[in-house]
């Protein structure tokens, strides 16, 4: 187990390093000069050189990469080209908003999705099961940004029930109100996804011998389903959530833009708009790390649950 853990962690670090290196190589191989994009066409060579120095673009490529990781390892991710603030402070200032949004979304999606999937499996092939099935596929298929804009249109603009933009004035209740619509848009696809996974694994578990055993003892059906079947059937969901981090992050980007919420997504979109390379690189590093950490965690949970996986790597 310890060997597996070490291997998996090393692989995770290698992937993050490779991914960011790839990005550096791409930046370098593109003909355009980031400095002229920032400064506009009338920039003097001196101004360009200054910006180059600030962005670290005056070093040779391998040096740039080494410097970036050296700095990142010490918790330094460069400074914002425009405001001169450290990128680390900016990124970690925005991170909590995104984490809160993602956690809220996934929580409500699980609370709705698990019972739906469970009910579907128990009432297999019934009319309600089929309706839930079609709804689940639809919820997965509809893009989250369309969902976000429609939610904004219906609940904020037309009905005026909830605030449209921002993250609130700092008060708890106000924050919750501002969180409802974005969390709805991010989570709705996951309701469908979770309900499908739970349904499939419930069907598998319900056919197993310990459930038949419980039945033959005459235990009440509700207790069999919740205590003996669902407890096992939920496990695959946990591992899928890790891999699903990428989808959650993508959905969060759109939700933050549509609802003008602060967060990593809004930050990176704005940084891309203004060609603020250090901020883009910092955000990419943190999101990629976040993603790799969550997939690695999911793999580890999987390995703990299933000994066969450990042997595989």
């Amino acid at each position, binding site marked *: 187990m310890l060997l597996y853990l070490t291997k998996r962690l090393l*692989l995770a670090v*290698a*992937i*993050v390093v*490779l*991914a960011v290196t*790839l*990005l550096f190589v*791409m*930046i370098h191989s*593109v003909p*355009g000069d980031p400095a002229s994009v920032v400064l506009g066409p009338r920039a003097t060579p001196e101004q360009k050189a200054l910006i180059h120095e600030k962005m670290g673009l005056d070093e040779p490529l391998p040096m740039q990469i080494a410097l970036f990781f050296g700095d990142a390892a010490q918790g330094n991710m460069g400074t914002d080209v425009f405001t001169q603030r450290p990128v680390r402070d900016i990124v970690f200032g925005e991170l909590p908003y995104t984490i809160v949004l993602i956690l809220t979304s996934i929580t409500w999606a699980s609370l709705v999705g698990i019972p739906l999937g469970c009910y579907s499996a128990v009432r297999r092939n019934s009319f309600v099961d089929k309706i839930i099935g*079609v709804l689940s*596929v*639809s919820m*997965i*298929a*509809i*893009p989250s*940004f*369309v969902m976000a*804009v*429609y939610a*904004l*249109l219906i609940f904020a*603009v*037309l009905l005026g029930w909830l605030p449209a933009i921002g993250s609130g004035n700092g008060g708890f209740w106000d924050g919750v109100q501002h969180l409802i619509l974005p969390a709805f848009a991010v989570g709705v696809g996951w309701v469908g*996804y979770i309900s499908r996974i739970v349904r499939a694994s419930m069907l598998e578990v319900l056919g197993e011998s310990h459930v038949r055993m419980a039945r033959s003892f005459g235990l009440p059906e509700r207790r069999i389903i919740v205590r003996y079947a669902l407890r096992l059937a939920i496990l695959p969901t946990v591992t*899928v959530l890790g*891999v*699903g*981090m*990428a*989808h959650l*992050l*993508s959905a969060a*980007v*759109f939700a933050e*833009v*549509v609802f003008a919420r602060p967060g990593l997504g809004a930050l*990176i*979109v704005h*940084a*891309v*708009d203004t*060609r603020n*390379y250090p901020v*883009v690189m910092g*955000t*990419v590093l943190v*999101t*990629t790390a976040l*993603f*790799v950490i969550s997939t690695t965690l999911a793999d580890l949970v999987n390995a703990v649950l299933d000994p066969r996986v450990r042997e595989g790597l």
Partner: protein
Amino acid sequence: MTAISASDARLIRGNSAWAEHWGQLRKNRLGLFGLFLVIVMVSSALLANFIVPFDPTQIMVGPRLGPPSWAHPLGTDQLGRDILSRVIMGGRVALIVALTSLAAALSLGLVLGLVAGFGPRWLDNGLLLALDSVRAFPVIIFALAVVTLLGPSLLTVVFVVAVTSIPVYARVVRTQTQSLRDHEYILAERAMGAGTGRILGVHILPNVIGPLLILVSMDVPLVITLEAGLSFLGMGVRPPTPSWGTILNDGYSYIQNSPWPVIAGGIPIILTTLGFTFLGEALRDIFDPKLRRDV
């Protein structure tokens, strides 16, 4: 005369495997609905030049942000352009992006997967690490990073989709190739002196391409979503070229003034992704029930 068994009948009517599949699809109501939506979307994209009532980029003197009317069934946008015409042309853009990028990803993924699956161990390991590091980016984050570098354009979207899909396809091809290459008929072929090219081209490729095509077809809605999403952020298709994403974004900017552009921009995205998803799921169940991939 002896009775003809079902399998003989199948031999006589050569195409009945397809007839059987069609029969299965016909029984799947959701799949049929998906097929209908896909046909509507594809044919309107193909015939776009002939059926648009107005030039989608023509700025007109009529009402701005007008509600639906007989002249403009989906209303007009903030510049007075006819939204229906823009929606039809936007479908064409979405389809072009989906087809070109998926074709590129398919061919490159196929080659890389075959190489990884059939080549030496070190090459396999190296390729896997490279593929996994590309996959380490959440797609939208990768897309945004690429846009910073290449600037927003149709080609950038195609590039992003191709690069992010290649690892998925290559992995599927690799796994299939590896399971096939130790089969006895491959060994026999090799014993008879067949080269790597013949083994890959004649024996492995036909076995790999089927499942891969189903995967690719199920990715069409994802690509359409990504194109619309990037265009929505103003980082995909450039104006004045219409895209469903830009229509939605234009509508979003004026959401306080009129709900119609937002409604008109979102519904084609929803219908198309639903259509391709329903059809893809039905096709997968028909052709290969085992091929169930996580989202």
